[in-house]
């Protein structure tokens, strides 16, 4: 079974440009989460999808960030326009809705975003 995949693995862009990150969850996982680790600090939650619906987006830093999950499969996270402080590693994770309290979130390898 394939794990969570993320694309690209690394992105270098200039301030003001747009970047779109993609996450493909484990097949059959309805929960999809985005997290971010900035400058060696804690890994912080961004948002949570259940299928195509945004369950919780309380961690999104501002309206420059837009996440979508059309059709309840893969998800994209767009940053527009990118700022220097957006640099970091963006992780995606997925888990089964049916698992309830036992659910484990499985993480992808992350996308390292560098904004110059």
């Amino acid at each position, binding site marked *: 079974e394939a794990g969570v995949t993320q694309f690209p693995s690394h992105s270098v862009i200039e301030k003001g440009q747009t970047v779109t990150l993609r996450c493909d969850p484990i097949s059959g996982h309805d929960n999809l*989460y985005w997290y971010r680790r900035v400058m060696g600090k*804690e*890994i912080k939650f961004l948002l949570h999808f259940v299928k195509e619906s945004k369950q919780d987006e309380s961690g999104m830093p501002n309206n420059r960030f837009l996440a979508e999950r059309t059709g309840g499969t893969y998800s994209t996270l767009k940053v527009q326009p990118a700022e220097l402080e957006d640099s970091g590693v963006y992780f995606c994770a997925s*888990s089964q809705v049916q698992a*309830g*309290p036992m659910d484990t*979130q499985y*993480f992808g390898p*992350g996308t390292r975003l560098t904004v110059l």
Partner: protein
Amino acid sequence: AQSVAQPEDQVNVAEGNPLTVKCTYSVSGNPYLFWYVQYPNRGLQFLLKYITGDNLVKGSYGFEAEFNKSQTSFHLKKPSALVSDSALYFCAVRDTSHYGGSQGNLIFGKGTKLSVKP
């Protein structure tokens, strides 16, 4: 507010010696606790979790963790460290403050770098 603390930025251990990576937590309600490991240039890998039941939880790669409710701790342990265990270790607790709690997001500690020397 719910939180996780990893008091040590780095832990150094000689190969073959036991290791402990510390984690304390603060939650309202039942704690759902997790340990993840990140090897260099890799993503987060799940090690083990505590949901309920036995206080000693066994996980991948010979790791185990002891849940202590009175001390609000969930320390990660291994009886005999390997050089290949050198990595960044994250403790996390499920955020149960929003809804239900069973599928809430994770709140992470800042991570502990484990270095195992031959």
